[in-house]
């Protein structure tokens, strides 16, 4: 496998987790600093189930996602009623607690040394198709009433409640979905790089995803996906700048946030309609 394909697969997998953050932080304004912990859980659970217990890869993924969803349900139950700034703090605590747990349970997870020798089962096709399906899921969710409810709750939760939206239930649904996305991304990532360690899944990764969402535009699905590709590829593309890499990366983000406060794409969405119209008119011309 060439270097470029390896990088492209990593970007596709991470983008799935970013889509979860897009739903949670972008659409609903909930800042979870423990989002990456769900990715860690997905990675570890799948790896342990396959390597230590010999379960088939797809089954292990399903179990890992179920685990993450159940855990998200409990965490959400405890945190989603509190104010949004406290939600960020509480999820931060949860995320770091998960890292500590993965580090301390040395006999199962290998501790800080990480868990290695995971078979490379994530094929390029699996990664890219997964991303496409994830985008399709979010697109469908967003154009249903859940998309409008998200915006309504984000901008005025009381008014949303008064007109019949159960805000807590709504936020729970979104939180659980985003945890599921992160866990799935984690599973694919573990079987792509064949190695997991707890430190990867700390709050910095959660923040990176949030930055990507705001960079691309939190009101644009297109922007989030393109933003993810740009910012996840940037560290590789900027390799030639060597030690200046992080600095250049930060300057790019600062420029975008200052010059385009609503993100690179604002509320713009790519639409298939012009393409369809183009092909239709061509057909008509041919018919003539």
């Amino acid at each position: 496998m060439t270097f470029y394909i390896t990088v492209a697969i990593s970007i596709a997998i991470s983008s799935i987790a970013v889509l979860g953050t897009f739903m949670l932080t972008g659409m609903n304004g909930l800042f979870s600093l423990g989002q990456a912990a769900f990715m860690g859980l997905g990675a570890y659970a799948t790896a342990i189930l396959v390597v230590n217990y010999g379960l088939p890869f797809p089954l292990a993924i399903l179990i890992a996602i179920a685990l993450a969803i159940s855990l998200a349900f409990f965490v959400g139950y405890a945190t989603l009623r509190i104010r949004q700034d406290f939600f960020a703090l509480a999820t931060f605590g949860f995320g770091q607690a998960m890292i500590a747990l993965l580090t301390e349970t040395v006999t199962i997870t290998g501790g800080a040394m990480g868990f290695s020798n995971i078979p490379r089962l994530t094929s390029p096709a699996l990664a890219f198709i997964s991303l496409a399906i994830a985008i399709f899921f979010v697109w469908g969710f967003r154009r249903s009433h859940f998309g409008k409810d998200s915006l309504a709750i984000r901008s005025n939760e009381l008014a949303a409640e008064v007109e019949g939206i159960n805000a807590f239930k709504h936020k729970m649904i979104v939180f659980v979905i985003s945890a599921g996305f992160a866990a799935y991304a984690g599973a694919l990532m573990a079987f792509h790089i064949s190695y997991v360690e707890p430190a990867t899944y700390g709050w910095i990764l959660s923040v990176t995803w949030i930055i990507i969402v705001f960079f691309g535009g939190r009101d644009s699905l297109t922007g989030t996906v393109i933003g993810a590709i740009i910012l996840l590829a940037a560290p590789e593309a900027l390799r030639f700048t060597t030690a200046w890499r992080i600095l250049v990366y930060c300057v790019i983000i600062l420029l975008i946030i200052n010059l385009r406060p609503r993100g690179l794409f604002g509320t713009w969405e790519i639409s298939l309609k012009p393409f369809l119209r183009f092909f239709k008119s061509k057909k008509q011309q041919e018919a003539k």
Partner: protein
Amino acid sequence: MEKAIVIDMKNLTKKFGGLCAVNDFTGHVKENQIIGIIGPNGAGKTTILNMVSGIYPPTQGEIIFKGKDISKLAPFQINHLGIARTFQNIRLFQEMTVLETIMTAYSWRAPYHFLETFVSLPRVARFEKETKEKCLHWIEKVGLGNEAHSITQSLPYGMQRRVEIARALASEPTVLLLDEPGAGLNQSEIHDLVDLIQGLFTELSLSIMLIDHRMDVIMRLCEWIYVQDFGKNISQGTPEQIQKDPIVIKAYLGEEIINA
């Protein structure tokens, strides 16, 4: 024929720490009736509305809606039963169009599960389409026919208030709670608003609970009026009775006027 009571408020009391915002309020709204609650600032009018719409539970007392105690229900549950409201300080959703804003009032009626939206089942799109048609009807009804696709925040204040009313109507309520609908509007806007409320009341046979301190609004619309002062109910009656009541005049204009 005597009209049935729709909302029965019994001995409602709300205390915030040491402050008693509403003290022992008793009153009711009948079927197809507009009642008004008036009083100076800080009289606890909005607090009564907030208790009825479930924003906070009463410290004491109960609210009976069609024979059911609703005083401990959450706002969204009360909305589902058929009570909708507007806010004094307009609470619209940022960056949403008029149509989208009003469509959210139908969200809880959606027949589909969130998993169905992932695969975009046809009935998701069908529900959205039906909702859109219903909402366009409500937008037309409040006279915003040309503004359906405008961003709500870009509209003038008077129109924003109409968006709020349309959103409340989209809940298809039996009772409408209007919290100072005339606040921040000029004289001609208020005139139009009163006509609108009167029209909706007759057409949809709603029960309306109205708060305002503009006498012209209250006197023109209400069949029965409760007067609040410092959290206490000081008087109630028909608009004619209220206008002549010396206690009300004293609360509004001060003691000296009466003595003079």
